[in-house]
């Protein structure tokens, strides 16, 4: 442990001081949202939920969020339309809005990047990781983005380099950094292990 940039995720917690509440979830992330909503007293207002169940996914998690009293739920089957909707929501959200993110790491940081660019403070944003721990990895050599990386060492899809996947997370690239493991001794590549299932 000890890499400062590695994200730390916590269970979502209701922020009573916020003037509006925006939940953004994908897949199993709906369960994390549900955990928060079930604790609330009836009559809490200004709750919006945007949920993604990708088309073709095995399970449809949106059902756990349906019929929540006083919650404006929008469901999406593609990440692009969801993120476009999130941008529109952020453009009109009041300054005291709390943003709750739940889903895969890549999904969380995609949404968090939009929030940052909209001017949100990181203290307004919470994230709970649900589902696969697969990483998105940025190759520092060829700049390719490798999706769904479960192993380190990983063969870069861009340049074929054997990449060590670091715990160093770049919020700007929304990816972990991968770099060549055998730069000192070409060909000396340790065995790849499944670390991020």
């Amino acid at each position, binding site marked *: 442990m000890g890499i400062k940039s590695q994200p730390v995720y916590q269970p979502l917690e209701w922020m009573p*001081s916020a*003037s509006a509440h925006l939940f953004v979830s994908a897949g199993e992330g709906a369960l994390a949202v549900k955990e928060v909503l079930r604790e609330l007293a009836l009559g809490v207002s200004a709750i919006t939920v945007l949920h993604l169940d990708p088309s073709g996914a095995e399970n449809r998690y949106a059902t756990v969020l349906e019929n929540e009293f006083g919650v404006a739920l929008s469901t999406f089957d593609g990440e692009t339309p969801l993120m476009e909707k999130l941008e529109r929501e952020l453009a009109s959200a*009041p*300054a*005291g809005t709390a943003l709750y993110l739940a889903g895969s790491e890549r999904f969380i940081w995609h949404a968090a990047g939009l929030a940052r660019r*909209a001017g949100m*403070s990181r203290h307004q944003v919470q994230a709970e990781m649900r589902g696969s721990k697969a990483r998105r990895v940025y190759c520092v050599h060829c700049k390719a983005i490798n999706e769904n990386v479960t192993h380190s060492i990983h063969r870069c899809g861009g340049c074929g380099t054997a990449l060590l996947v670091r715990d160093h997370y770049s919020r700007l690239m929304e990816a972990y950094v991968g770099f060549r493991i055998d730069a000192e001794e070409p060909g000396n590549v340790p065995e790849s292990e499944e670390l991020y299932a």
Partner: protein
Amino acid sequence: MSLAVEIAEIETLTLRVKRFRLRSREGSLPTYSPGSSLRIHLPVGGGLWNAYSLTSDPWNEGDYAIAVRREDPEHSKGGSIYLHERARVGDVHEIQAPTNHFLPARTARHHLLLAGGIGITPFIAYLPSLERWGHSFELHYAYRDEAHAAFLPWLRQRWGKSLEGYATAQGRRLPVAELLKRQPVGTHVYVCGPIRLIEAVRAAAAELGWPNSRVHFEQFSLGHEAPRLPFTAQLIRSQKSIAVSAAETLLEALERERVPVPYSCRVGGCGTCELRVIRGGIDHRDHCLPPEDREAGRSLISCVSRAANGELVLDL
């Protein structure tokens, strides 16, 4: 950094506000950012260091300008009265180079500027900078009446579209809660003026769930203070025991004993004079320590805060 300036020009802005233009006696003055203030030495009593916001445009003016409100004698040590009645063009004063505890945020999507009375001064330097950055902003300015509203004609002429004025003599109040309520994500609010205005803005922002990092405030005076009691400060490293009287602050007592402590605002707003406390209860009177530091009880802002139980042991 200390340097000498000469009063180049004195201009009456309102019944109680004069603007002083200060120029270097040799070479150029240090550059500064919008929201900066400087400290100027005034020959009143044993000598006073008063702080004033710079109202000049940091980009275009090589000189410093400050706008000074004449305070009533009962609320003042006489610095502003000296500047109003005795200061003359050509007088030379020692100043401390500008420091900034009230810088506009470059990352803001919108700036909400709230000024009460003489609290307009830092915003006079903000406006040309925000315009240059191409940022969106609105200025809300509360004043007693137009005759008391410094810079109002200039503001109306140059920034009329972004300005809303509130004449309190006509019963108009700055609608703090409504203004904050309608701000979108990414707005930063800045407030400068009387303590009660600052407190109202901070309370409304907290109520609406604004993050602290989006709320900026600059205070000029201490406002109404709880009574001060004398106490003893034990300095561990310099091995001194200093009696702080009811009439002085801890910072003043340390200066009297020649224990140098860096300082800037002297009204508990900037945190420059923070000291480490080893033992003793603290009567916190500052506006800058985060709540967690306050509770931890290991830090004290020496220009305003005092001992809660008669003695403090300091890492100094």
